[in-house]
């Protein structure tokens, strides 16, 4: 429902400001252009999106996701010590993180939810510190290959669509670090 309000607000605001600003003619044209641009964009990035989803699926089938999961277990045991005492929660958590890294959203979310459900047992509807940390980990995206964005860039004629990858890694790492630090500090300050 939130999106209904946001979308209507965007349309109403542009019409109101267009009338006030004398740009209403351009607003009308832009509506048509925007809809056409959306379809054009999707069509021209379809190839790249499909190719990389395919590549990620091959990686998953080759056991790369399990390998990544094993790699992340020690880190997760440090971040979420109580939750990781339960081996099933740990395996859901590490699967969640490695699926996120590979950009497999369809695989990451169910695993993350499974972990969150197990961790929420006995919390009585209040988020524990570790649940907050899990959510922060998932709201700060860490993706090895930002394929959707690269697809958009390629569709718009970028000379090298993937040249932003190191910048994305740097921004992701800083963002996750800030989120985890904030969770740690707020967890200290916040009363239950």
């Amino acid at each position, binding site marked *: 429902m*939130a*999106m209904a309000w946001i979308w209507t607000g*965007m349309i109403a605001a*542009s019409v109101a*400001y*267009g009338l006030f600003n004398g*740009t209403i003619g351009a*607003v009308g044209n*832009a509506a048509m252009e*925007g*809809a056409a*641009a959306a*379809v054009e*964009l*999707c069509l021209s990035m*379809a190839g790249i999106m*499909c*190719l990389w*989803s*395919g*590549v990620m*699926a*091959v990686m998953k*089938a*080759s056991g*790369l996701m399990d390998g990544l999961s094993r790699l992340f277990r020690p880190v997760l045991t440090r971040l979420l010590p109580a939750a990781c005492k339960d081996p099933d929660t740990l395996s859901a958590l590490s699967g969640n993180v490695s699926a996120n890294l590979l950009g497999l959203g369809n695989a990451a979310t169910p695993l*993350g*939810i499974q972990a*969150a*459900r197990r961790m929420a047992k006995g919390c009585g*509807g209040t*988020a524990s510190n570790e*649940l*907050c940390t*899990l*959510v*922060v980990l*998932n*709201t*700060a995206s860490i993706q090895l290959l*930002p394929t*959707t964005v690269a697809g*958009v*860039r390629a569709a*718009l004629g970028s000379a*090298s669509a993937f040249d*932003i990858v*190191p910048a*994305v890694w*740097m*921004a*992701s790492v*800083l*963002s*996750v670090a800030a*989120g985890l630090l*904030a*969770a740690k500090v707020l*967890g200290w*300050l916040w009363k239950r």
Partner: protein
Amino acid sequence: MDYSAYLVPLLLAFTAMFGLWKRVNVYDALSLGAKEGLDTLLGILPNLVGLMTAVYMLRASGLMEVLGGLVGPALAKLGIPPETAAMLFIRPVSGSGALAIGSELMAAHGPDSYVGRVAAVMLGSTETTFYTIAVYFGSAGIRKTRYAIPAALIADLTGFMAAALAVRVMFGAG
């Protein structure tokens, strides 16, 4: 030196050979995955039609510039280009909305421009925070979210600042 020029072909070759070595039917897995990619795209497309219409209308009315002018100076202090103002606000709420604004920015400024790159890195390094929180806490039956939202928003803001910083460091602010 553009090392990303090696990334794509080497990664493709590595994935194919590693998969075959692990006795995976690489070709079948690839086409199954490609179909999933198409499903994702089909899920985005109807949203983008609505949202890009709204974003193009906002831009044409001149309101987008007004917003940029209002919060621009504050963003500039954080090193964030003011053109991305609208995207920052919609990013935690709607992934498709942010993609709509981001791709409009990349189209208007060029995908290899400073603003275009910053928009791309911001999209690639942040998530749809409120949606994610709703999904996780909703399915776990959590009603009191405590500090999860502020902590996640701090991560988002850091991501935005770091995106602009990373692009400045790696590509210059040209």
